[in-house]
């Protein structure tokens, strides 16, 4: 009888049922879309953050550069001798500087590893190479009769005339080098790239003169596997080409850590320690432990870094989490209220019906169950419609894949600042300028989201049924029958 009665009543009140179900469907669909878009935002942010310090890294430990300085050393100075104007000899000079941060002793890696909750830690050294190469020639003194004479610093008794020719023609080339711990290939920025040609470092190549080039840099410099690249006079054999999974690569060249330390003249020093926690739930406690036990360091988690993301991704993410979420809540509350009021009003119209059933001996509980049952079915229909609508919405977002820009950091690189030092996180090669990445937004719908939708549908049904059931249960049969006399 329960189901027969329920089915017939819903059929009779199709329009009202549809209004209730549609309201709930709208709210639930909105929740699904907002939830899936938020999840997509999260994935996009993860992708952005991943590109910064690689897979598996939960936090980085750095030591911020002092205010007003560019990382470690002094400003680079180049000295070239002027050659004769006839000479076409090219002169070249490299300066290797630690980039972005102050260095930490390599022993700090061990200290970090020893902290409770740390699964693994690996050090890396970030360098910036500035190479100036070209021709530097003296000018020639032209005297009255056109006789030539060598220019140069003038002096007393120097012949009258003017210096002609001379000058410099040079090229400045700047690129980043990252010293990686080849014994720990699973942690660090190189994990965000794939070796697309050649091979990765071997664990035995701790001090080998080998390099892995980023694909963009390799293309620009026409490097390929087997090529040789010279850094500060040292030749390195390119053993592999790495392509970043998304956005920019962590560095232009990757070298074994010891080689990078030698080039930078910073023996046993690192700029960044990449840390993997034993449990993602313990990241905050590990961060606190490191900051407490290893003084002078800055620990930056992915959550800290996420705060430095700006651009349309950040805006969209904020919209999804604030406006979207609130909008969903408001629509849901409105839908619940409308469903409740409509159900309650339906009960008012059925006073005689319920009064009669009570006169026949139906208990208040049985009448209430009937009302709640009808509201629940409305809620479930709304849930099914809402899930379908939400899936379509999420599919459309994924199909359109709107492109979002993410700006990371944005520090000038010569001053301390936000988490991780200038420019944001302690990734190599990214500290000196804002980094802009483009990511496609998707809206993945998880089973949890579907479960949430079902839960909301049931809740909507219960709220509506609660309103109506409460009214129905309070009906006294005599009053109900008297009202229609």
């Amino acid at each position: 009888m329960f189901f027969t009665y329920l089915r017939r009543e819903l059929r009779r009140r199709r329009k009202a049922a549809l209004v209730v179900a549609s309201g709930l469907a709208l709210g639930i669909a909105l929740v699904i879309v907002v939830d899936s878009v938020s999840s997509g935002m999260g994935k996009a942010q993860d992708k952005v953050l991943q590109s910064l310090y690689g897979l598996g890294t939960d936090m980085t430990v750095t030591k911020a550069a002092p205010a007003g300085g560019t990382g470690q050393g002094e400003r680079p100075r180049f000295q070239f001798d002027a050659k004769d104007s006839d000479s076409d000899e090219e002169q070249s000079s490299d300066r290797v500087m630690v980039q972005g941060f102050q260095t930490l002793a390599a022993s700090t890696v061990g200290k970090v590893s020893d902290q409770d909750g740390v699964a693994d830690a690996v050090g890396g050294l970030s360098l910036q190479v500035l190479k100036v190469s070209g021709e530097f020639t003296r000018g020639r003194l032209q005297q009255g009769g056109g006789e030539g004479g060598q220019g140069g610093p003038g002096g007393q008794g120097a012949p009258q005339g003017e210096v002609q020719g001379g000058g410099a023609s040079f090229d400045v080339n700047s690129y980043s080098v990252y010293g990686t711990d080849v014994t720990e290939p699973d942690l660090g920025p190189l994990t965000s790239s794939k070796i697309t040609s050649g091979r990765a470092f071997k664990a035995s190549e701790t001090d080998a003169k080998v390099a892995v080039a980023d694909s963009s840099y390799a293309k620009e410099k026409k490097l390929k596997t087997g090529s040789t690249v010279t850094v500060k006079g040292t030749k390195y054999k390119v053993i592999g080409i790495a392509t970043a999974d998304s956005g920019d690569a962590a560095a232009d060249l990757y070298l074994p850590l010891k080689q990078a330390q030698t080039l930078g003249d910073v023996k046993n020093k690192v700029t960044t320690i990449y840390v993997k926690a034993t449990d993602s739930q313990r990241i905050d406690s590990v961060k606190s432990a490191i900051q407490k036990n290893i003084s002078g360091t800055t620990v930056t988690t992915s959550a800290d870094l996420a705060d430095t993301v700006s651009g349309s991704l950040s805006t969209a993410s904020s919209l999804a989490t604030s406006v979207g979420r609130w909008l969903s809540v408001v629509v849901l509350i409105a839908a619940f209220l409308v469903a409740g009021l409509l159900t309650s009003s339906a009960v008012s119209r059925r006073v005689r019906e319920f009064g009669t059933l009570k006169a026949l001996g139906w208990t208040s509980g049985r009448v209430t169950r009937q009302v709640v049952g009808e509201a629940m079915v409305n809620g479930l229909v709304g849930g099914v419609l809402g899930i379908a609508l939400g899936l379509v919405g999420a599919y459309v977002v994924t199909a359109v894949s709107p492109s979002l820009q993410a700006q990371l950091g944005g520090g000038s690189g010569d001053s301390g600042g936000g988490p991780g030092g200038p420019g944001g996180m302690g990734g190599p090669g990214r500290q000196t300028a804002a980094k802009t990445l483009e990511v496609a937004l998707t809206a993945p719908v998880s089973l949890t989201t579907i479960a949430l939708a079902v839960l909301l549908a049931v809740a909507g049904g219960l709220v509506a049924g609660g309103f109506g059931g409460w009214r129905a249960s309070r009906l006294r049969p005599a009053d109900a029958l008297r009202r229609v006399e």
Partner: protein
Amino acid sequence: MYELSGVTKRYTRGKDTVNALDGIDLTIPDGDRLVIQGPTGGGKSTLLQMLGALDRPTAGRISLDGTDLASLSETRLTRVRSENIGFVFQSFNLIPTLTAQENVETALVPLGVKSKERRERAAEALASVGLGERLAHLPSEMSGGQQQRVAIARALVKRPKVLLADEPTGNLDESMRDEIMDVLERMWQELGLTYIMVTHDSSIARKAPRLATIRKGRITVKENAQA
């Protein structure tokens, strides 16, 4: 058997208090047929609701087979209604979305009768009021007289001790009225139940063996030798 002593029902309407029933004393033996008459607002329907355990008196005692209805809990009153009392209303009060058979079945639901038995008993009850061919019809597909016969079948399907009818022919034309009165009288005789009816219709009242008249909450009962 009903025994009423000093039954009083007062309603408050704004600042006024209305005595719908004012110290009613009445005995209705088992198998009796009592017709209640009186002017509108005199308290007829209120008395019927007291007898049907739909409402409680403000004062006094209503006992059905020795049980004081006024002192029972809501749950017990509901059980009394479901087991012992059948109602027939002026407006039929059928559930519009249920068929004739399903409407009759609603009276058996609170008794926990299984679905198959419910269907069988409902079909029998409808057949007994001449609607054996109309089991699957909705109320909207039936005439007023047929709807009232469905209501009578619903009232009697559980084999109650008491049948309470509140203006059962009030919404029917003359031919339908006679038809329904015939059905009710036949059922009373066949089932041996106590039959209490409220009516405005003097022609029906004249045929009643006992006639109660309620005016301003007070009752007078007369035996009708002609009936």
